[in-house]
């Protein structure tokens, strides 16, 4: 492959200590290298902002989203952000595009790329449904992908925890990642998914799961310890119990405290807490509901075993989709909204409900504030991942909007000025004047997600990294983001260049090439589990398939045909 060099850029590469310097970025064979020959193609960044390609460590982009698409033809025609939403006809290069919260696969690839994002992590897929997710992955162009596999209400997991059989738990976890060609372990409302099949839920960490002698706390500890025993690149990725309920901060804090006793197998968190905004509520009802971001931030500022992402809300229509089945039913009843549900045999629950968030509703205004408060009150950006829990809190095409909110106090105050009075004594945001700089923003949108996931080749521009680079028409040394946030937002929405694996895929906001992305997955089974334990697991699984599953064991595992560009990662065996 041809060589390339990016010149005259203002580079932010926090992992490598580069903070707005005019470094050259050299690219060869899809990788960042230290230098290239004289014949290398020159990309002149003209003093613009140069960042590693964006990494979205938590998005709902394949699998469940397809049911959401079927539910929402209205979304397909909705276009609040011209160029990044709504119907667009095919071109000589591009397939037709539709949608805002639930765009078609092609639009997902094009639009993330336009934002300068190059890697995305599907946040919730059951092993049994992984084949479907990979079919959509194959159809999403350009981006590299990975998947987090739902294990928090899985019968095998709960059975082995109940039996105290940590070896089987470890074997199953490794096998489930292999079977689904998955990357990491996701835990959603632990135990609650299983109870939801009976129409019930759990109310906290110490409830008993109906059909197994385990509690959500047992599940979290069991999975976290197995995760570390397998030395997986990512920690467990947790959606706490009691999402969206006033007073849920108690559960969230208890969950964080619970994991203090687990030791990380490597230099990263032992738990990533996702969409924290939805889990940081004080109060006893919607009447006295308020932000608990200060308590959450205090805890995180004084502990180093966890990371979190914002789950920032965007005003306007959203599409909620989660394995948290009971939450979706509650949403549907509360807003008289349409409701889809899916209970996946032995593995997890799931629901989908379209919602709309209004700046004129005090509860929504408060939730919007909480996401920003969390990111601003936590001092170390390496603990914070930027997300909207796409499209639960809002569609990913709004990332530049939310990034500007973090970088401009002025912009925040303008929005807050329009909030109903009932919001004001529930939030602390008006008193927070911190504005993120480009280095901090780069951490939260690139470097931190890559580190949190254990993806060494992403999120930075050092030699050996994948040559995923975003160049934006922003001159960091000339622009005052705090004031000129509208212009900067536009620049972040349509990258000047997006380079993916050394290839220019976006030029001046338009897609120029459609390379096929890779799929990262973790094989901790092959070398990580001894043969005797493999045999013991398979014998047990065969029995369970015969009795409880609706498909044959031999037809269950995702076949190689579904992952055309795999990158298999094998953790070192401890």
């Amino acid at each position: 492959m041809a060589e390339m060099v990016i010149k005259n850029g203002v580079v932010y590469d926090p992992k490598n200590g580069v903070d707005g310097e005019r470094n050259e970025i050299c690219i060869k064979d899809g990788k960042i290298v230290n230098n290239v020959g004289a014949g290398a193609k020159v990309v002149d960044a003209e003093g613009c902002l140069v960042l590693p390609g964006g990494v979205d460590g938590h998005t709902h982009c394949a699998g469940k989203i397809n049911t959401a698409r079927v539910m929402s033809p209205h979304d397909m025609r909705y276009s609040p952000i011209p160029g990044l939403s709504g119907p667009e006809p095919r071109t000589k290069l591009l397939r037709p595009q539709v949608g805002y919260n639930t765009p078609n696969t092609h639009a997902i690839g094009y639009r993330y790329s336009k934002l300068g994002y190059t890697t995305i992590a599907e946040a919730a897929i059951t092993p049994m449904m992984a084949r479907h997710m990979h079919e959509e992955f194959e159809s999403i162009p350009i981006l590299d992908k990975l998947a987090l596999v739902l294990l928090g209400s899985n019968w095998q997991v709960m059975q082995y925890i109940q039996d105290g059989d940590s070896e089987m738990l470890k074997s199953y976890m490794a096998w489930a990642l292999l079977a689904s060609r998955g990357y990491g372990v996701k835990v959603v409302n632990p135990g609650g998914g299983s109870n939801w099949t009976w129409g019930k839920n759990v109310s906290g960490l110490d409830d008993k799961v109906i059909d197994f002698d385990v509690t959500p706390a047992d599940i979290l500890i069991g999975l976290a310890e197995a995760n570390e025993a397998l030395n997986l690149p990512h920690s467990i990725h947790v959606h706490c119990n009691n999402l969206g309920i006033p007073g849920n901060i108690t559960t969230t804090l208890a969950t964080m405290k619970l994991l203090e006793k687990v030791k990380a197998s490597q230099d990263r968190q032992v738990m990533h807490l996702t969409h924290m905004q939805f889990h940081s509520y004080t109060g006893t009802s919607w009447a006295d509901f308020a932000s608990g971001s200060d308590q959450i931030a205090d805890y995180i500022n004084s502990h180093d075993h966890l990371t979190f992402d914002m789950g920032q809300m965007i005003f306007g229509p959203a599409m909620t989709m989660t394995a948290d089945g009971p939450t979706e039913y509650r949403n549907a009843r509360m807003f008289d909204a349409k409701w889809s549900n899916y209970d996946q045999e032995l593995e997890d629950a799931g629901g989908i409900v379209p919602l709309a968030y209004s700046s004129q509703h005090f509860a929504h205004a408060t939730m919007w504030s909480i996401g920003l408060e969390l990111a601003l009150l936590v001092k170390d950006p390496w603990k914070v991942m930027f997300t909207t829990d796409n499209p639960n809190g809002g569609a990913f095409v709004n990332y530049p909007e939310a990034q500007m909110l973090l970088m401009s106090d002025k912009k925040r105050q303008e929005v807050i000025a329009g909030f109903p009075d009932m919001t004001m004594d529930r939030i602390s945001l008006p008193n927070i004047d911190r504005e993120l700089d480009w280095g901090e923003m780069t951490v939260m949108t690139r470097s931190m997600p890559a580190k949190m996931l254990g993806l060494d080749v992403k999120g930075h521009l050092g030699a050996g990294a994948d040559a995923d680079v975003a160049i934006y028409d922003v001159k960091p040394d000339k622009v005052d983001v705090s004031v000129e946030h509208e212009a900067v937002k536009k620049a972040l929405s349509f990258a000047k260049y997006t380079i993916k694996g050394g290839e220019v895929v976006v030029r001046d906001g338009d897609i120029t090439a459609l390379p096929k992305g890779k799929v990262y997955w973790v094989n901790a089974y092959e070398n990580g589990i001894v043969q005797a334990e493999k045999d013991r697991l398979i014998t047990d699984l065969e029995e369970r398939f015969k009795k409880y599953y609706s498909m044959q064991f031999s037809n269950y595992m995702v076949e190689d045909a579904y992952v055309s560009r795999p990158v298999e990662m094998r953790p070192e065996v401890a």
Partner: protein
Amino acid sequence: MPVIKDVVCTFCGCLCDDLEVNVEDNKIIKVGKACKLGRAKTMGMFLHERIEKPMIRKNGKDSELEECSYDEAITKAAEILVAAKRPMSYGWCSTSCEAIEKAVVLAEETGSLFDSTANVCHGPSALATQEKGAPSCSLGTAKNYADLIIFWGCNPVHAHPRHQTRYSTMAKGAFTPNGKKDKKMVVVDPRNTDTAKKADLLLQLTPGTDYVLIEALRAIVNGHEDVLPDEIAGLPKAKVMELADMCKASKFGIIYFGMGITQTRGRYKSGDNVSSLLSDLNQTNKFVMIGMRGHYNVTGFGQVAAWETGFPMAIDFSRGSAYYNPGETGTNDVLMRKEVDAFITGAADPGAHFPQESVKHLYTIPAIQVDGYANPTTEFSDVVIPAAIAGVECDGTAYRMDGQPIRMKKLIETTFKTDEEILTEIIAKVRELKGAEGGA
């Protein structure tokens, strides 16, 4: 004699994946575990009237089909589609998702209307989902949990013969270890069907009154039984109360629904109301639903179309972007408006399964058929392209009625091109022809 185990049956939406097939000299000589439908399909391969050669009708609909080469047929097909102002692509439900993806590309490339057999099947269920959502579960969940099974407007004994033993009434699951003994079964149908023979309760309603009955159940579930008349949908109120009581007494109920919901008066509004009923019931019990899908991969069409285009069916690419309005862009609507001027169909048989008015129009326009067997569609097709049988002669993906994808196996070798290959070649030819015209 080699036995291929865990073969996926490619007849109905049950997508049973436990068949045992014996192959000898590239012939299927025995099919184990299949129902009558699955056996007929898989074994019948060698008995049925296979389309052996590509064929073209050279002198109008009343001339004979004449054998030709694949190249000639594919070129002719591409010429028809490129020349058309309002082409339509229909079907693609008894084939693999990989082929369906190609069919989407061809439709985009030719600015076609694009629709599936759901147009005459569960299309209204998709509309109902758009109105009110689809509270559902996997078939294995239903097997393990369901203690109340309601077959509403469907007849699995005839259309999904292994459904009851594998997934529903007779299936033994984690919380239903005794099978039928642990479950109640209800049939709602104007006919006393063969499925109803084993039902604990049959509600033989007046044809076309499904919506009324659902609404009555909602009234009871929500505590308003007093407003109901003595007779509902042709049934005594007591009988409706009995069903409502069974619903309320169940821990996990499921409604399997079929064409009795989608094709009768009210169409999608009945499905919409089923969703509303389930939303009501879930305040106190767990209750879900699954549509009984006919073609083994019609669910897959909906999935592929949704992720590729944003819409599950009835898509119009004439604007370059995807446009969707099922009552306007659905196959039968455009055919009856005589709007379509060229038609390509694959892995479906509109000739047999469309109303007379639609078929009449198909006799007036150039038609292309891609299929393994001769059928009524062959009668009016001007280009007939023989295809390998997916799941027997080639592998690929199919989605079960509950949305579970399973990989189909290739059982025997074939000289026929697959649907995917045929579509790929037509796309290439279309691009070549359009390139020659200087089109985009």
